[in-house]
């Protein structure tokens, strides 16, 4: 993997279970950095326009196997990485990623893909300077999701794994396995773990403190008037 600081930019990723509140946190971080008139760019998982249609059809028609599931997400990531993430980093931006390669590491591991193969697949990707892992008890995460969003999608619930015929039950088991994998990665990679059970405001204060202390923000002032 590429060493830190090879390029001028800063790469910040958030990871965590569905319902961990990571998207809210990175959104608030983005707003803060933007408000400080810094060069900042936000990107999210599974959003490259070219790959999106294929992914959607694959999911809708349930054509995906663990291997093609893994590859289609890697394709999407490569497209965004080479088109946006890397150029923005080289141009001296702070790049915020709502989910990064660790999302694939955990999902692909739960689906049985071998770890070495997946790691080599993503071998071209730079490691983040900060990976904020929003950790909370499984039941809390499940409660947040199942309360607010009654209709779970097939792959989201891990139905392809045949864990249960019941969508909700499958989702519970699947999320539990995802969490196990995240905890393993937290031991292996330099994640900054954030207690995601606290209120949104307090967590955001922590996030801003971590980034404010770890990055010389004055280096990232926008050079283009807006």
């Amino acid at each position, binding site marked *: 993997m590429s060493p830190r600081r090879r390029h001028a930019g800063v790469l910040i990723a958030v990871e965590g279970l569905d319902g961990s509140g990571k998207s809210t946190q990175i959104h608030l971080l983005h707003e803060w950095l933007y408000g400080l008139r810094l060069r900042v760019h936000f990107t999210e998982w599974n959003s490259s326009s070219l790959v999106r249609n294929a992914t959607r059809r*694959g999911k809708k028609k349930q054509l995906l*196997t*663990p291997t*093609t599931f893994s*590859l*289609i997400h890697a394709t999407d990531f*490569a497209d965004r990485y*080479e*088109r946006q993430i890397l150029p923005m980093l080289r141009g001296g931006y702070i790049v915020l990623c709502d989910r990064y390669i660790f999302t694939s590491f955990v999902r692909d591991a739960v689906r049985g893909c071998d770890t070495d193969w997946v790691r080599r697949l993503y*071998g071209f990707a730079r490691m983040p300077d900060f990976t904020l892992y929003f950790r909370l008890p499984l039941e809390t995460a499940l409660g947040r999701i199942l309360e607010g969003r009654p209709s779970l999608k097939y792959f989201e619930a891990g139905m392809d794994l045949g864990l249960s015929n019941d969508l909700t039950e499958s989702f519970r088991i699947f999320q539990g396995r995802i969490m196990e994998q995240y905890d393993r990665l937290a031991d292996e990679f330099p994640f900054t773990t954030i207690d995601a059970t606290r209120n949104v405001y307090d967590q955001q204060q922590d996030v801003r403190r971590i980034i404010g202390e770890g990055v010389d923000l004055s280096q990232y002032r926008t050079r283009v008037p807006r």
Partner: protein
Amino acid sequence: MTKAKRCFGTPPPGLDLSRLTGALIVIEGPDSSGRSTHVGLLAEWLEQNGYPVVQIGLKRSRLVGNELEAAKEGNVLSPRTMSLFYATDFYDQLENTMVPALRAGSVVLADRYTFTPMARDVVRGADADWLDSLYSKALVPDAVFYLQVSDRTLVDRTLASHGGLDYWESGMDLGLERDWFGSFIKYQRRVRAEFHKLHKRYDFSIVNANRSIDTIHAELKDRVRRVLQSIHPNQSIS
């Protein structure tokens, strides 16, 4: 007694490789090498001999075949994204077409396999080890025939059949030369050099495809017959 099928590396998760009684025959070679002609002729001959045939090729998956075609038209994806897109297309066909067909005892004829995408990607700067790993879950074919043609034959056949050159087959995205003809020659040489490297790493046969269709077909039939006899010693094939 059927020879067991295996993958180059660890098989894809959940894919059952047992009882794959069919044969996997791969024909590789540049456009205008006669590849598709020979795939067609072999298919006809095999079916006349009572062997069911299933054909696969690049950009034919249900999953991403159309998107790949569109991406090539637009020339907007980075080489790495294209590599991964082709790999997705390949594995979709491996798991959903090839393996079921081999289990049903069919002869799977592949009009190009993993080698063409690998050679093209290396020419475009991809790391060979990364590609080896990417395609390590592919089935090891029972035979791979690489149809090799000289520059002269390739140019003559391409111009005669298409009345011009193809953007990708001329490697125009690489900016080798402004002139398409010059670029075509340079690009095809580079791809051929990569095939030679692959030939050393993976076990495949080089077939001199400068000869007539009949001569090449006779040679291919002879070789395919031997492959089938090693898999099904008690069957006879004309």
